């Protein structure tokens, strides 16, 4: 039953919104790891369509391939096939500089994704230098302001920042090249709830200000429900269901797996889980 459901659900949004402009479209993406007998297919036939200015969520448990999809889009995984279109144009396996100006990624752990011996200033100005931007000073200051840090933080090292501040720096770095699409890989799961609220608000503000398109990967259904308008559920490397946020709020997912995920994120329910 889940198989037939997911096939229907996958196609539906694509037909319904074929008229709208797609910013990012993934068609039949497969990702493989390893060689020969060790070869593992981490992502199977994933097709997604993200609208211009939209916010698309991918949820799933560890090992479901959700982050791998993002990494393939971003060019961090080599061995993929299928098609990744940005603004209607397919991307190749080797990405050029223009690609980096269009898409940037924010990683999960702000404790691991910043170079410990580089100052905030160096982290932020490096992409500008690589891409030959002018006005480096002004741009660094503006972005620091955008993410709510201010000029005081410019010459600090990561160890002088809290987790939330580090994640703001990571977001600032992603914004340096003025990208149109941001890929967010569990951007708040290493943070406390109060800090998570601040970062999620920051994402909402930035999206409005800079007209960004988001693709967000997370295991937290409440976070995608807050951030995204359309949500894909992944399991074992496949998309089992695509639904819009309203369907999720009303607890009307089609597949049993999504039901279970949703139930689990609402809290512990002795009857539901004790019986299993």
């Amino acid at each position, binding site marked *: 039953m889940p198989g037939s459901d997911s096939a229907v659900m996958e196609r539906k949004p694509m037909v319904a919104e074929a008229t709208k402009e797609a910013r990012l479209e993934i068609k039949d993406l497969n990702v493989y790891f390893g060689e020969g007998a060790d070869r593992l297919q981490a992502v199977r036939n994933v097709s997604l369509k993200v609208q211009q200015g939209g916010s698309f969520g991918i949820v799933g448990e560890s090992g479901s391939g959700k982050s791998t999809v993002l990494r393939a889009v971003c060019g961090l995984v080599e061995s993929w096939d299928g098609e990744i279109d940005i603004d209607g144009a397919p991307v190749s396996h080797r990405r050029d500089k223009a690609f980096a100006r269009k898409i940037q990624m924010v990683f999960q752990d702000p404790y691991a994704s910043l170079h410990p011996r580089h100052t905030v200033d160096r982290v932020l100005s490096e992409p500008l230098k690589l891409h030959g931007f002018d006005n480096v000073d002004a741009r660094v200051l503006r972005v620091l302001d955008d993410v709510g840090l201010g000029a005081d933080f410019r010459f600090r090292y990561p160890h002088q920042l809290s987790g939330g501040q580090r994640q703001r720096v990571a977001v600032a770095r992603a914004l340096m090249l003025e990208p149109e699409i941001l890929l967010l890989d569990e951007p708040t799961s290493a943070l406390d709830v109060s800090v998570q*609220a601040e970062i999620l608000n920051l994402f*909402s503000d930035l999206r409005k200000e800079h007209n960004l398109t988001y693709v967000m990967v997370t295991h937290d259904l409440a976070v995608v429900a*807050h951030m995204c308008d359309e949500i894909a559920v992944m399991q074992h490397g496949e998309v089992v269901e695509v639904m819009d946020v309203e369907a999720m709020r009303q607890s009307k997912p089609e597949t049993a797996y999504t039901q279970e*995920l949703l139930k689990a994120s609402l809290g*512990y329910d002795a009857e539901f889980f004790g019986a299993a």
Partner: protein
Amino acid sequence: MSDTLLSVEDLWVRFPTRAGTVDAVRGISFSVGRERVGIVGESGSGKSMTGRSILRLIRPPGQMEAKSIAFNGKNLLDYSERQMRKIRGHEISMVMQDPKFSLNPVHTVGKQICEALRLHTKVSRRAARLGALEMLEAVQIRNPERVFNSYPHELSGGMGQRVMIAMMLITDPKLLIADEPTSALDVTVQMKVLAIMDKLVQERGMGLIFISHDLNLVSSFCDRIIIMYAGRIVETCKASELHNAVHPYTRGLLNALPRIEEPKERLEALQRQDSWKQEVSVDARV
């Protein structure tokens, strides 16, 4: 009250640093009966230190101090290290966050469970083995024999955590301290592990201290909640009455959570007030 298993009075945990002494836990009092008590707080609130200090597991240079830590009417502070070893793992057990770091990687799971049992009770190897297999079955491991003979790296996170729970419960402790026992697990696995723990704790009439950062989870899983901020207890309430919480910190945490059922344009960011740090800790003894 005769039902009280553990009663802690005026607990302090301090860490001397170059910049002066840091108080991780600042004079808290609470009690636990045969119930599920949740301790919630953000990172750095002192919740884990509270759990560890019950077993006197604060490593130097950290220091702990308390008026009393009464367990079954006896003050654990009067115990020698040797006597404490009889308490740890036997009367009071602790499940840690990540099974990857809490299981010994070079011994089989079975050996580790048997060791836990044989350290505290006089049983033969054979009986220990049977007991371990039974316990593995009780935590709903489908193939206990196979898991008994496997090494920790051969198990998934959920399995590893079940093994940990089996190991901690095999000695039939009276109190279980679970420090973020399911935070490293996927949500659906998390719920299964919680259900197992819940069932075992209830069947054996144990007390449970459940330490977590997840307010939502704690309020649905525990009977009573203690909310900690900056080393103090700011509020305590019945889990079912959490939504009526009055302290601005608790309210702030609740409002900062995105909720599936109630969409909001913006999440409320928590406005911390310095006065919260100065407030007197709430007495959470029943």
